[in-house]
């Protein structure tokens, strides 16, 4: 394994922020740490980056124990949530900043590498612009370029899209994924946005209260959530009590039909969402949500009595 977290634990005074965490990450893999705020995901990232010393446990990168190395000695760079661009420098000064401290680059070689990097992130025309004058998406790209130019073995990302608006977030997400595939870099990605984690990750580590709740591919986790917490956190879920049994079922896995299925209910509300319509159906005392694809939707009315079936 390329990057190993072994029994990683961090205590602050009496609070255990991260408890006995074990994760193995392959080379070139993109792994998300996903969880609500305060779940320990950022603390974990800081321990990998070296900004926090673990109370117990090890961080092993490419066979070498880096647990006690200073951040600057690790072949790891971080893109911070706030981007942390140097406000008094222009784009190329920001991107090239790290190269100044790498002896192997002559001034000319450094300049060429900066140009190449700016080209890659599509900011060639902004080289001399001050970073504070850029849009959120452009600042984001500068932060990436500045981190990637050092050819780190691992790139850490701390909620990098949280300052962007919805459409731009989706666009940047795709760009980063492309970039990651192209240069085959190992990335660890902290987020609280489940959609982001699903769409970008090779694997997701779901955390809560400082411990790992589930590790798996996006599909694993979405289709086989280990417990109610994971099911609720990733996507929407109906918790339906049928006699003694409790069923966790996704809204898109419910169909509405007029034939008798034994599960009878009444439509109390509907919301058109474009690709599908969400029906709010009251079954006994419980209300469930069913997402009916617009292609198969038979346009049931509010007040109508219907049967549901599970798929």
């Amino acid at each position, binding site marked *: 394994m390329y990057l190993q977290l072994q029994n990683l634990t961090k205590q602050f005074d009496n609070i255990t922020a991260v408890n006995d965490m074990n994760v193995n990450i392959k080379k070139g893999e993109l792994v998300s740490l996903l969880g609500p705020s305060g779940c320990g995901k950022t603390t974990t990232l800081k321990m990998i980056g070296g*900004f926090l010393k673990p109370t117990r446990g090890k961080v092993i990168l490419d066979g070498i124990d880096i647990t006690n190395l200073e951040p*600057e000695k690790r072949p790891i760079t971080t893109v911070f949530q706030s981007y942390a661009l140097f*406000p*008094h420098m222009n784009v190329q000064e920001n991107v090239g*900043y790290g190269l100044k401290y790498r002896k192997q680059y002559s001034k000319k070689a450094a300049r060429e590498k900066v140009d190449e990097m700016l080209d890659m992130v599509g900011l060639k025309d902004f080289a001399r612009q*001050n970073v504070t004058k850029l849009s959120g998406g452009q600042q984001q790209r500068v932060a990436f370029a*500045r981190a990637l130019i*050092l050819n780190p073995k691992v790139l850490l990302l701390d909620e990098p899209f949280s300052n962007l608006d919805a459409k731009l977030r989706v666009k940047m997400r795709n760009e980063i994924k492309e970039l990651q595939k192209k240069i085959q870099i190992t990335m660890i990605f902290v987020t609280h946005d489940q959609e982001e984690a699903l769409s970008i990750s090779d694997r997701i580590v779901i955390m809560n209260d400082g411990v790992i709740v589930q590790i798996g591919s996006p599909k694993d986790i979405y289709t086989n959530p280990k417990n109610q917490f994971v099911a609720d956190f990733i996507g929407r879920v109906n918790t339906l009590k049928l006699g003694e049994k409790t069923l966790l079922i996704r809204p898109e896995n419910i169909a509405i039909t007029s034939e008798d299925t034994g599960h009878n209910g009444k439509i109390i509300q509907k919301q058109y969402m474009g690709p599908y319509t969400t029906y709010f159906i009251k079954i006994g005392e419980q209300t469930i949500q069913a997402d009916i694809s617009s292609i198969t939707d038979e346009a049931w009315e509010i007040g109508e009595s219907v049967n549901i079936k599970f798929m």
Partner: protein
Amino acid sequence: MSKAIRNTITSFIVPILFIFTWAIFATKLNNPMILPQINQVLNNFVHATDDFIGLGSIPRNIIVSLIRVLLGYCVGVIIALPLGIFMGYKESISNLFSKFINTLRPVPALSWVPLVLAWFGLASLATFFGVPYGPKQVFFDNFKFAMIFIIGMGTFFPVVSGAAFGVKNVPKTLIESAKVLGASNRDIFFKILIPAAGPNIINGLRGGLGSAWGCLVAAEMLPGSLSGLGYLITHAYELARTDLVVTGIICIGVVGALLDYIFVVVEKRRFSWLGR
């Protein structure tokens, strides 16, 4: 456009009314000891280089005041700036000094005058360098240690607060980023921390210079002073030359405004990246 012009016109109404009122009262009272005529004041500016009744010419008094304020200001900045920066940089240093500084802060700088006079007496740069008696000695004797000390005091507090606040508020991620990119502590300090704290540091320096100028003028008004703008206005009053008092006050205001303007320019030039 039309709105901007209207605003400009409006903004001149009160100053013009003020000047008119002055002119009318001056003529009605006809007592130059209480309110001089405007043209008398203007006349003083036209003959600015005259030696007014033994008080020295206006430019000479301005220069003496300026050198004084700059001497004291430099002393204050040399102490306050590094201290403030280190206080912002290391919490332990801040802990060490902040209680002490905050205890001294509410004492107005001028209150130190009697104590400082007891320490330095009338010692001046002339005494220090042992300048022999003569015009040179008279000039250097203007720069008394006591005055420099007081102005330094006036400078100290705004500068130390601005620097400490600025450095403390540089985002931690900025420093961590620079560290990860391989910058040495020395480079982080000088190339990241100080420039990023720049706007607040400049703001402190600006406040310090304003405070220094205020202290200086006040200090020059105290007994024992023999030149400077503060001296000019006090002694012009004693000689019942109210026109000269007004002239002096205008000079004090203009010089104060110009000193402040230096920082406006520096801010615009160096910290254009702040403009959002």
